[in-house]
């Protein structure tokens, strides 16, 4: 009963939107960045031919100012009972890399997987809670839609035919998440007022080294910045 009541109030707040705000911010990296390595795309001539210059690993994309891309920022332990978007999230396989490299999706929200390459990919998701999936996408199969049923921490989605192809997906039961762009910026809209724990995850730092911060949303907006630091040498 209590649960029901609180979810009703919460949904009122969310759908009301009157006292909801936006969390914005920048994720930065401090220190000398690791070098991006070339990908061995000569393993498949179709892949190699789709790049003018050798493609590089997207493990760690940081610009000269230290703005860090591909970081998932999300609020932890938020209850949400609003609608799940029906607009699909797209995951494209183009030039034998995934775009986006990192993405968040809501449980139940469709994920449209595209194959823009003239070669066969197979798309192999390795979730632990959701059902593992693995299917081939020959060049004639241009898109396929899947959904995830349950929220789950970040997991790998990869291609076994092209071993370097790797992407990360996190499934949420609420819409309060974002992924930083190449400028390191992100924004989480429509967050109800309140104090939350915010988490930032970056692939190279892994799930054990996520950053977390308190953030309070009040009166429409809040700012939230994260700084990842280069690990010290022993």
């Amino acid at each position, binding site marked *: 009963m209590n649960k029901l009541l609180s979810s009703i109030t919460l949904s009122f707040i969310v759908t009301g939107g009157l006292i909801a705000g936006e969390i914005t911010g920048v994720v930065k990296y401090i220190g000398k960045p690791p070098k991006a390595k070339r990908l061995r795309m000569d393993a498949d001539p179709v892949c190699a031919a789709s790049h003018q210059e050798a493609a590089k690993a997207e493990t760690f994309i940081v610009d000269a100012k230290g703005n860090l891309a591909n970081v998932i920022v999300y609020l932890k332990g938020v209850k949400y009972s609003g609608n799940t978007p029906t607009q699909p999230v797209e995951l494209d396989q183009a030039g034998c890399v995934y775009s986006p490299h990192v993405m968040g999706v809501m449980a139940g929200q469709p994920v449209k997987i595209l194959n823009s390459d003239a070669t*066969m990919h*197979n798309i*192999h998701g*390795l979730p632990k809670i959701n*059902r593992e999936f*693995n*299917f*081939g*996408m*020959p*060049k*004639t*199969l241009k898109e*396929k839609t899947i959904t995830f049923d349950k929220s789950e921490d970040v997991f*790998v989605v*990869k291609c*076994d035919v092209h*071993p370097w192809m*790797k992407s990360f997906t996190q499934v949420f039961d609420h819409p309060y998440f974002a992924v930083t762009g190449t400028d390191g910026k992100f924004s989480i809209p429509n967050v109800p007022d309140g104090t939350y724990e915010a988490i930032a995850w970056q692939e190279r730092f892994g799930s054990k080294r996520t950053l977390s911060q308190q953030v309070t949303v009040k009166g429409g907006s809040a700012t939230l910045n994260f700084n990842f630091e280069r690990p010290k040498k022993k």
Partner: protein
Amino acid sequence: MSDNHTKETFFTKYIWSIDHKVIGIQYGITALLWLLVGFGLMMVMRYQLAYPDTQIPFIGWIFGEDKLLLPEKYNSLGAMHGTIMIFLGVVPLAFGAFGNYLVPLQIGAIDMAFPRLNAASYWTYFLGSIIMVVGFFVPGGAANSGWTSYPPLADVATAGQTVWLLGMVMLITSSLLGSVNIMVTVIQLRAEGMTWFRLPIFVWTQFITAFLLLLAFPPLEAAGILQLMDRLAGTSFFLPTGLVVSGEVLTNAGGGSPLLWQHLFWFLAHPEVYVLILPAFGIISEIIANNTRKPLSGYKSLVYAMTFLGFMSFVVWAHHMYLTGMGTTMGAFFQTTTMIISIPSVVILTALLLSLWGGSIRFNTPMLFALAFLPMFGIGGLTGLPLGLAAADIHLHDTYYVIGHFHYVVAPGTLFALFAGVYFWFPKVTGKSLNESLGKLHFYFSFIFMNGVFMPMFIQGLAGVSRRLADGGQAYAHAADVIYLNEIMSWSAWLLGMAQLFFIANVVLTLFKARTGEINPWNATTIDWTETTSPPLGHGNFEKIPVVYRGPYEYSVPGSKIDFTPQTEKG
């Protein structure tokens, strides 16, 4: 059992029947239906091979919205095609149906030795076959690691593999019950005077087949149990230490070996080849003797060759494993045994060919199928020779050459024999003869298209094209010159499917006709034809248990007025 049954309900007469003839028919119908299903799977696969990654016409919706046969589904169909054809189709038809129906009739027994066990055997098979296809409906689809289910692939495969293993355990149990039954029946229930060397060759082949099933299947059951443990209890019988699957290190304890599976598997699966072919020899022998109107040449050499074949089949299994890193001693041993086992096959084929000499050959439908069996099995057997030599196998291993080889043995080989048997014994089972014209159309079209399907496989195989490629070899340069054959093979396969309509129509139309009342339409000599009505009456088969006075193929005996002398005739 006893003929003083008070009441026979529909249920006890047709469903839970313990009459070997009804069980034989149950086996026959079920197996024919499974053959059709297995054949259907293959026709879909052949579409994908001929026109890779294009939408499957007509029935594409089965495979999802995109109507494509994606590689994982292709692999499922491949594994299930093999499994269904062998374990649900050919063996139950050859051994379950023909064996059950004919062995007691041919040896003059009133039923099998254990009638209830016989029914249990059929129903275990039925249940096992249902479990097998349930796999199609579990997440990830049916088993997709090939009919050989090699671990580690099968160990880490989707849930369908577990279902496959459970189905196999049922099927193995069924064939164990069946083989004990056939062996006891042949040993114990032969009529008076039916000595071992008066047995029709067909009975001999069933007896040896039962022997193979009895001893070869249990090791596969053991292997199946071990694989189930690997999949369900997390053991590592087939998983060595330190595997990385899809980027993740396996957490199993390790220490196992995938070769263990291969040894246990092929210890069954090579004798299984002879399980497939021996009943075919039996059927062919009966039909050839009958339609040449003369005794077989070398009855005893046939029996000895088949028995020898049965024994040898237990020591050739590792010739499927030449490329697993086999050393010189093992290699030499298995190459030698493999060459040795080719000799009795040559003897059998030669004896059957020589049996034609001096005959008065009638070309009816069963005989046409039986005659076609000889060169077709010849091709199948001969193409086994290069595969049996490890050096030649280096190039041909796991290519379409292998597929061509064993399909020639099993499809135009065993299947033709089984069709011959169906045409030959149909009057016995139903009292009605199948139409000859439709039968001949069925034969000629089947003959042409069978070769159209399988002959090009040797060419692809010589080119080095691997089996089990979901796109028929498109991705590989060495397949480029021979890939056009895929279309020829596929069209042949579909037309072969159409040709079976003659058979289906023939059966259906004939079933609507009235019984001829003829007991022995082929003027045969064996007890099944001479001592029972067609179809035989209820339980018990014979009004009086026959007594046997002579061998099974006393045709055109000099001095006899008619050209056949039944086994039961004195003198």
